[in-house]
């Protein structure tokens, strides 16, 4: 009876250890993949997790997690440096959203489609339809009344003033969030100010605050 209890206890410990070992290997593998997706060497994530086996215990992976969350990711620079990518954004949200933005680089393959863009949706007071005809290189999306030709008004309380910027380069359309509290989303994915301008030519919906706008060719 006593030996059976000891055996059960050892079995439980063994099972727990086996689970911990499998979990550790899985976590190391997944950390590798996550870190690699951010553009860093994958072995950094592997080492960060495996350091939990050392005497310093779990504090190193936790510190590494915080550093990873708040450091700059090479992914952002890589994506912007790719052919056809958007220009490198400023490291912090643009402090002067009314300043003229840098022009988008020319597209890789210019399609002979010179139609403008249209953003349409519903706001608190009815519907809104914004024409982006390309007469200006950039447009400000704002919740306040438009005071300039390159301002597009989305009259909704959840839309900041200004909220985001539309950029036009040839047949492509870019979108940049200006640090709006309501947030900007491209097909459901959050666009942060540190992402910089993002090509939305192939996007279907953008959301400013709580206003969802369908993107289409005019």
């Amino acid at each position: 009876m006593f030996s059976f209890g000891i055996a059960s206890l050892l079995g439980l410990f063994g099972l727990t250890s086996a689970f911990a070992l499998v979990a550790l290997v899985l976590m190391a593998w997944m950390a590798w993949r996550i870190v690699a997706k951010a553009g860093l060497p994958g072995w950094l994530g592997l080492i960060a997790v495996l350091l939990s086996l050392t005497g310093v215990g779990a504090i190193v992976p936790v510190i590494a997690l915080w550093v990873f969350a708040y450091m700059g990711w090479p992914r952002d620079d890589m994506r912007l440096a790719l052919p056809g990518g958007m220009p490198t954004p400023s490291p912090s949200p643009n402090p002067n959203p009314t300043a003229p933005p840098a022009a988008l680089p020319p597209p890789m393959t210019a399609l002979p489609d010179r139609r403008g863009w249209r953003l349409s949706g519903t706001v608190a007071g009815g519907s809104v339809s914004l024409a982006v005809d390309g007469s200006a290189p950039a447009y400000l999306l704002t919740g306040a009344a438009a005071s300039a030709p390159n301002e597009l008004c989305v009259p909704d309380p959840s839309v900041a003033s200004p909220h985001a910027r539309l950029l036009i380069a040839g047949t492509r359309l870019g979108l940049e969030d200006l640090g709006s509290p309501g947030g900007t989303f491209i097909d459901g994915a959050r666009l942060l100010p540190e992402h910089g301008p993002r090509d939305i030519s192939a996007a279907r919906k953008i959301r400013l605050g709580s206003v969802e706008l369908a993107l289409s060719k005019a």
Partner: protein
Amino acid sequence: MPDVWSIVVWMLGTGVAWLMTFGALVAFLFVIGHVLVALVLIIPTWRICTRAGFSGALSLLHLVPVVGTLVVMAILAFSDWPAGEAPPQKV
């Protein structure tokens, strides 16, 4: 004068009550500790999820004991990031 059985029952009752109080205290401290540890993980994970294009609320899975962290990591590791990924590197 109380008989022996009354004293035994009283002692047993007191012991059980003490044990239950102690157990509740331990459970309470365990929950508080778990939430605090989860919070230390949730804050950076929230930012990572947001930067990857996922909802930050995904990081609340850290509140699930034992497997929550594994699930969050699995989602981040094995799904396509809506905000884009770095191209695969040659090892």
